[in-house]
């Protein structure tokens, strides 16, 4: 026996050996030395020595026995410690090598399994990348989750008000929850730059880069003392550096002109430099509007957006609380009520909300809920897809486990325990999954490119996204997890069969293995059910998307461009500002390609007014109605015509009032300013009609001002978002911040630079800020739905394909198991149709069971889609029935192929074989 084991290769011996204990090792060494002694004594006796002499000589030749005993003790301890791990590791590498050999032998199986897993894991990794970037860690800066935007009273501009500097100073001095506070702003100054390109300067505090956690790409940051003095230094953006200086190092030290003053370039900001958190909503200003030069400024005078880096371990809520408690101690300047007959500028009005809260806002907090929802749904969908992939591979493995049962039985006979076998199977499946994960990362990369092409607005900054360490880690984690998941079923089965049974039993035919067969059928039913859920969800979204595109918007977004213009209040007198308004409109009107120009925002983007009330006059019974939040649009009289908005009742405001707003009117009894309201506001304040001709009061800090309602305009709706801005009023403009809008003639194209040039040619002082295109806006508004729909459809189709492959596999396998039975039937004269029916029936039974379960689950699951659906209900019966039918048709096709193969079985061959 021992001679026999000596002949076995080392690997086999090791495979079944237990880790050795210290006692065992000691005993072994002892036995070895004892054997040596016996042989030595025997040899010496043979040379003629007597017993005591021989033993004494043997002992002498052995040397220092004490020293040797110490040696064996040390060795036993050392080996017992390392053996456990070493055994495991050698077993493990052995298992992996064995798995690799298996895969090499069964290439088709391996390819199918790896491809299936790659699809599942790849889709998962891609969506995880999006989830990670959108919801977990949106800012591409070191510890980006610690960066917040600071606001007061729910308005980012509150910190620019008269109380702002005092609050900021108090925060800087006393807040412990933030590491640093920095600000960035775009200011109304002009820069004459090299090559006469558009260059927009922005001010940053000297600690801005430090707050973001980035380093200059070249040169240095601003110093603190440069904030306070007129140091004449500037940093330029990476983009400008590349464009105008060709990325050369000599850009440092170059001079650049701004407002007639020279600035020396001291540094280049890195490409990822920018305002980390945009509080302006979902609009996407064109890239050209981004600033390209940075000038140093002080935190309290920059008047821009304020950002902070939170201390590690501090949550945004905790920071908000502390900042609020500090801000509460700062005396606030009340905004003086406007003199009678003069309107408060809308921006100021926004600032007068309840003096309440300091807010630290994370980028995550600003994600459009619709978009976050879409991503969450997709995340669940890819998880389901992965489960289907797992079920498929588990099925493949179980089919193979059946053919491998002899191998397992032999292993058990050689002493491998159930645990050892399970580990072998799991090693195989995890190796498979990791291979799938490897290809999956490639698939993730491609999927990401598709996602970027669909590009929902919140993912706009995803452009530079890549498969990063977090995503790689995730993919590996998912791979190992799926490997264990789909491997556990075959692993359980592997240990279950009794050795004798398998070795004795004939391999061929019959019922197959009961447990394995049941498990495989269950998996198929689950797969079909899960696919149906995905299909139903996808179908509902497709219908919603179609319905959404038919929603009447209330305006025509086509060929609209809009831009905000900031008028510097101190450097332009009211008359100059009014003059500018008229002049820029005339110039815009005269620009080739522009068919009409007006003052006003995109109809879908009115100013939102919070914390102010609109109230009707008291009626005869002394009752009045009021609402709290509303939207406000300033507009020139031709605005409705330009936007193609229809006046449903009444007339436009008297355009003679246009100049009134800025001329203080000493006569408080002058007729009230005329406004138009939207249908929603009319419905809310005058449910019984009679809005036109009524008077409306806008409350500002205890004072109020009456408006006369002269007309009602149609509501503006956006697909999936209802009435935009809610109740709204339309009034003639106040020349503070004027929005410009133009409708271009068909085919005309006007870039952001063109528009800014028109403004600059009219007057160099105002600055054009954001430029938005009406079509883009609409596309962005539809993006979350389109994004969710496209991906869910893709995932559902893949899921259906995988289920079909799984079903096909099971049917084909059962045909191969039943070859003998079918052969007998054919020999006995069964009709071909009966054979096809026999085979296809088993497939269809599984598919129908799956579809039924799927419909029930989908009825519940699609309810989570409710907020994304439009014009169709979650449990829509037509959708469900048609998807169930689709699944049925696919199931028939998947079963038909193996059924046809069953027909070709030659009865003689089938009966003769084995």
């Amino acid at each position: 026996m021992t001679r026999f084991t000596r002949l076995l290769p080392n690997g086999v011996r090791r495979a079944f050996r237990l880790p050795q204990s210290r006692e065992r090792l000691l005993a072994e060494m002892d036995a070895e030395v004892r054997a040596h002694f016996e042989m030595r004594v025997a040899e010496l006796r043979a040379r003629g020595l007597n017993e005591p002499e021989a033993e004494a000589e043997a002992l002498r030749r052995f040397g220092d026995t004490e020293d040797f005993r110490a040696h064996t003790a040390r060795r036993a301890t050392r080996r017992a410690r390392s053996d456990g791990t070493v055994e495991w590791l050698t077993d493990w590498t052995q298992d992996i090598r064995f798995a690799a050999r298996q895969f090499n032998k069964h290439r088709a199986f391996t390819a199918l399994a790896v491809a299936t897993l790659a699809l599942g894991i790849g889709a998962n990794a891609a969506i995880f990348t999006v989830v990670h970037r959108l919801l977990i860690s949106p800012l591409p800066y070191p510890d980006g989750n610690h960066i917040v935007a600071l606001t007061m009273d729910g308005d980012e501009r509150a910190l620019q008000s008269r109380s702002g500097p005092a609050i900021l100073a108090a925060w800087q001095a006393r807040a412990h929850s933030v590491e640093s506070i920095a600000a960035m702003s775009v200011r109304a100054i002009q820069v004459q730059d090299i090559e006469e390109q558009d260059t927009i300067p922005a001010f940053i505090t000297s600690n801005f880069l430090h707050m973001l956690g980035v380093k200059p790409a070249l040169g240095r940051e601003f110093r603190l003392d440069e904030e306070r003095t007129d140091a004449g230094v500037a940093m330029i953006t990476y983009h400008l550096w590349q464009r105008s200086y060709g990325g050369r190092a000599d850009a440092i030290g170059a001079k650049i002109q701004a407002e007639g003053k020279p600035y020396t370039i001291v540094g280049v900001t890195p490409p990822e430099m920018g305002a980390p958190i945009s509080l302006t909503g979902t609009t996407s200003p064109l890239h050209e509007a981004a600033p390209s030069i940075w000038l140093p400024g002080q935190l309290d005078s920059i008047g821009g957006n304020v950002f902070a880096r939170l201390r590690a371990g501090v949550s945004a809520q905790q920071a908000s609380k502390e900042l609020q408690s500090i801000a509460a101690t700062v005396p606030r300047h009340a905004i003086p009520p406007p003199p009678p007959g003069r309107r408060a500028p809308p921006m100021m009005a926004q600032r007068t909300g309840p003096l309440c809260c300091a807010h630290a806002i994370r980028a995550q907090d600003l994600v459009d809920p619709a978009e976050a929802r879409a991503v969450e749904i997709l995340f669940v969908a890819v998880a389901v897809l992965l489960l289907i992939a797992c079920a498929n591979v588990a099925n493949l493995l179980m089919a193979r486990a059946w053919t491998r049962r002899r191998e397992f039985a032999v292993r058990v006979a050689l002493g491998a325990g159930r645990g050892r076998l399970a580990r072998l199977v799991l090693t195989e499946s995890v190796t498979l999954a990791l291979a799938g994960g490897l290809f999956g990362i490639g698939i993730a990369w491609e999927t990401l490119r598709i996602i970027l092409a669909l590009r929902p607005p919140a993912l706009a900054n995803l452009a530079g996204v890549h498969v990063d360490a977090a995503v790689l880690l995730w993919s590996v984690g998912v791979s190992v997890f799926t490997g264990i998941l789909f491997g556990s079923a075959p692993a359980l089965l592997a240990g279950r069969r009794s050795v004798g049974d398998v070795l004795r039993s004939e391999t061929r035919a019959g019922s197959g293995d009961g447990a394995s067969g049941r498990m495989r059928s269950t998996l198929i039913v689950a797969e079909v059910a899960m696919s149906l859920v995905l299909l139903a969800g996808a179908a509902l979204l497709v219908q919603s998307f179609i319905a959404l595109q038919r929603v009447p918007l209330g305006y025509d977004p086509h060929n609209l461009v809009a831009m905000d213009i900031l008028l510097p209040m101190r450097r332009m007198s009211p008359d100059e500002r009014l003059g500018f308004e008229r002049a820029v409109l005339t110039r815009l009107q005269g620009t080739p390609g522009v068919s009409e120009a007006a003052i006003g925002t995109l109809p879908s983007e009115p100013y939102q007014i919070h914390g102010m009330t609109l109230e009707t006059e008291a009626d005869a019974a002394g009752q009045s109605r009021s609402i709290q939040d509303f939207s406000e649009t300033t507009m020139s009289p031709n605005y409705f015509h330009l936007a193609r908005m229809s006046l449903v009742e009444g007339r436009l405001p008297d355009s003679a009032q246009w100049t009134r707003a800025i001329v203080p009117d000493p006569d408080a009894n002058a007729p009230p300013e005329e406004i138009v309201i939207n249908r929603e506001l009319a419905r809310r304040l005058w449910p019984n009609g009679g809005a036109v001709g009524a008077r409306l009061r806008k409350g500002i800090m205890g004072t109020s001002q009456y408006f006369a309602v002269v007309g009602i305009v149609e509501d503006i709706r956006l697909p999936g978002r209802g009435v935009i801005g809610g109740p709204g009023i339309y009034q003639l403009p106040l020349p503070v911040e004027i929005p410009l809008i133009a409708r271009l003639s068909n085919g005309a194209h006007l870039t952001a630079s063109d528009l800014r040039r028109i403004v600059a040619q009219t007057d160099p002082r105002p600055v054009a800020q954001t430029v938005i295109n009406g079509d883009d806006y609409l596309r962005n508004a539809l993006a979350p739905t389109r994004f969710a729909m496209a991906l869910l459809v893709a995932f559902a189709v893949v899921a259906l394909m995988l289920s079909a492959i799984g079903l096909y596999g099971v049917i084909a396998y059962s045909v191969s198991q039943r070859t003998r039975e079918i052969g007998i039937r054919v020999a006995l004269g069964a009709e071909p149709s009966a054979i096809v029916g026999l085979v296809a029936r088993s497939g269809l039974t599984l598919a129908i069971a799956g579809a039924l379960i799927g419909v029930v689950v989908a009825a519940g699951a699609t309810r989570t889609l409710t907020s994304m659906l439009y014009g169709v209900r979650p449990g829509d019966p037509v959708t469900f029935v048609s998807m169930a039918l689709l699944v049925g048709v696919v199931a028939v096709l998947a079963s038909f192929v193996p059924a046809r193969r069953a027909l070709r079985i030659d009865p003689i061959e089938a009966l003769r074989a084995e």
Partner: protein
Amino acid sequence: MSRDTSDLLHGTLDLLVLKALSWQPMHGFGLSKWIEQQAGDELEIVDSALYKGLHRLEDAGAITSEWGISDNNRRAKYYSLTARGRQQLRAETVTWKRYVAAVTGILETA
């Protein structure tokens, strides 16, 4: 001439063991006999040093051991060379020859 082997360099004993095992697997006693025979009884191996050497080589992965039955029907532990041991033998043989040549060169000329 009989000589105590405790002053034999560790490396030398290892080298001899590797060389011996390159012929066939052997147990410790057999090794001791083989080396003494090959050296024409010029060397007497201290047995404990031999076993320490064997254990050292086994722990380093140069040789492996397996229980077997000796020619006169005794249970004994047989050692055999691994691939790594074979490589070590080749490398150390070369080193040893150079070393001896260098030392001999010095002794004969000086």
